[in-house]
């Protein structure tokens, strides 16, 4: 079981510039796969393309979730099929309480005519919030409205814990986090690691990978995977930067 990205080509809709240029990557269930790469290499595009963002169009390749292509699916269908995206910049939804939003998302996964049980729901929500050291008052506040950067990221992880996806993509979840928040967010993610879930962790910095230790690290350069390796690769990147890989990647990418 895996999320399989095969020779994926994507560009901004209506614009010729290709951003993903033959990206191939497999995220296996039970594993954490980290993606690193310089600015402009296509990291955030990858997460949006996987989520089905309408700004992008796929020109070639495929994405298989446990063997079935998701490219023909709407963003909400992909979500209900088990794909979760922790946003780099989570959106604010004025007037909609956090508790109602997460509840609506869970309700959307239930069969027609079935209602979510309110007491069970709140019990679960409070348990996860305690784990993420979030104050109870966040249930009544509008989704992400007036949240600090760190609070928004915790809120993303809270949604992930509640929705229990098969595959979670964390898009620079560490950006804007201080060390305490990073520790808490990582604790939340690590609690979800296990045989039934795969993670794709997109990050700029090695630091996050000290807390969420990856099984595999890949480097994205110019819209395709330039190199893959173990956790040690992340440390090497931190020491040497990306330039040496960029030079290698300038060669035809087929290895």
């Amino acid at each position, binding site marked *: 079981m895996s999320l399989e990205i095969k020779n994926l080509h994507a560009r901004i809709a209506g614009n010729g510039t290709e951003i993903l240029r033959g990206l191939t990557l497999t995220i296996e269930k039970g594993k954490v796969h980290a993606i690193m790469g310089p600015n402009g290499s296509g990291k955030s595009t990858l997460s949006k393309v996987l*989520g*089905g*963002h*309408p*700004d992008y169009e796929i020109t070639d390749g495929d994405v298989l979730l446990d063997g079935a292509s998701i490219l023909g699916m*709407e*963003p*909400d269908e*992909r*979500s*209900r099929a088990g794909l*979760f*995206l922790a*946003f780099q910049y*989570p*959106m*604010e*939804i*004025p*007037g*909609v309480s956090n508790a*109602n*939003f*997460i509840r*609506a*998302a869970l309700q*959307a*996964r239930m069969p027609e005519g079935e209602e979510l049980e309110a007491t069970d729901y709140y019990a679960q929500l409070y348990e996860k919030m305690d784990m993420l050291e979030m104050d109870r008052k966040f249930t009544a506040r*509008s989704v992400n409205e007036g949240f600090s950067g760190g609070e928004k990221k915790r809120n993303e992880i809270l*949604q992930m814990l509640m*929705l229990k996806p098969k595959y979670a993509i964390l898009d620079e979840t560490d950006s804007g986090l201080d060390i305490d928040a990073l520790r808490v967010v990582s604790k939340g993610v690590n609690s979800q690691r296990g045989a039934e879930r795969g993670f794709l962790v997109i990050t700029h910095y090695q630091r996050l990978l000290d807390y969420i230790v990856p099984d595999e690290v890949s480097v994205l350069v110019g819209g395709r995977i330039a190199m893959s390796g173990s956790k040690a690769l992340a440390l090497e990147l931190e020491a040497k930067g990306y330039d040496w890989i960029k030079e290698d990647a300038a060669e035809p990418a087929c290895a």
Partner: protein
Amino acid sequence: MSTEILETPASPATQFDIDRTAGNFSYPEQHEFDAGTGLSHATIDYISNVKGEPDWIREFRHKALDVFLSKPMPTHWASHDLDNIIFNKIRYYLANAQKPTRSWDEVPDDVKRTFERLGIPEQERRFLAGVEAQFDSEAVYSNIKAAVADQGVIFCGSTEGLIKHPEIFKKWFGKVIPTGDNKFSALNSAVFSGGSFIYVPPGVKVKHPLQAYFRINAENFGQFERTLIIADEGSEVMYMEGCTAPKFETTTLHSAVVELVAMKGAKLQYVTVQNWSANVFNLVTKRAIAHEEAEVKWIDCNIGSRLTMKYPGVVLKGRKARGEVISIALAGDGQHQDTGAKMIHAADETTSNIVSKSISIGKGRATYRGLVHIPKHLKGCKNNTECDALLINAGSRTDTYPAITVRGTGNACQHEASVSRISAEQIFYMRQRGLSEAQAMSLSVNGFVNDLVRQFPMEYSVELKRLIDLEMEGSVG
């Protein structure tokens, strides 16, 4: 169908004294009383005869018709769509019986089915102090709980009010909104039928809301209910109205006049949740007079209709009176919600608050018109106005026309307005959590009006949420 009755009632007025069911030939089983198509002084005599009204009302109606005919359509400022109302193709009075039943069982079956589908008797049992259900021109059912009636509260239709309680009715009727206020208040004054008459004696606090439900069921028809509510000194009452109509190919006219009087220290709340079908011209005049230390609050919620023009107002006549208008308008594709509020400050230390939120979907158009008037000689008056518009699609439209006159040095006025859009990124974010596009839109729209909806009675906020969901479902893909 309606062409068959075109010719019927245009005969001399005297004939109606003999045959009160003239003009009724096309639908004997449906409408015992039918004033026929078109509007003339004969139409008015027919209505007055059928209702058995006193002469002063008959004269009031005839004068009002002359005022209506003499006034031009207000298209110099309002929508030219008004010119599409063909007054001589409308039927002005349709009813089955003159007296509403007090028992639900006696309501005719088809009418009963209509209201049961709308949840009326169930709501009454659960949380209402009294209910009136109007079908076309007359109420078919009217009931007030005994405990409330025993306190001296009067709750009945306008005809019963003016015949049985003339000493109260006459004193206030047409005083808050004079016949000549505008073309449509004149029209209503000429042909009004149905609506509620409520009197709450001094000091009586009606704990549960009184509710009226207005249903248009006939084609080529105009509904002209007339409501007069008097909350005597220190009393409290909440009145709620709901409105619906089936969708016809032809246009339907709804033109009500609602007058509220809050005596010293009284508290009066008037809640409307209107969901007219998209062929209804909804042209309503609503105004209140608030005496010393009285509080009047209009909660006005407009969904549906082809064109709604409605600006609930409060004349703050006594010292420290307070007026409030909470307005929500949802303009769907092809609809124009032209709504707002009027606050006329006429005494010292009066305060008013207007909060208006509108949502435009597709090519829908929401217009806010606000009038705030504080003259120079007053002291310590305050107005706060907030008006926020949400645009859903690229072709959606909103306009704001605030008219604010604040004179003198001791008065304050604050006006805030905003226009926002639901962004594509916001929708994508919500869809990424598993909500369909329609669910995401609906949640955003509900969020936008949420702070206002929280002020609604529980049952109505649930109903409003359901209506928004339906409207958003229809607007996506």
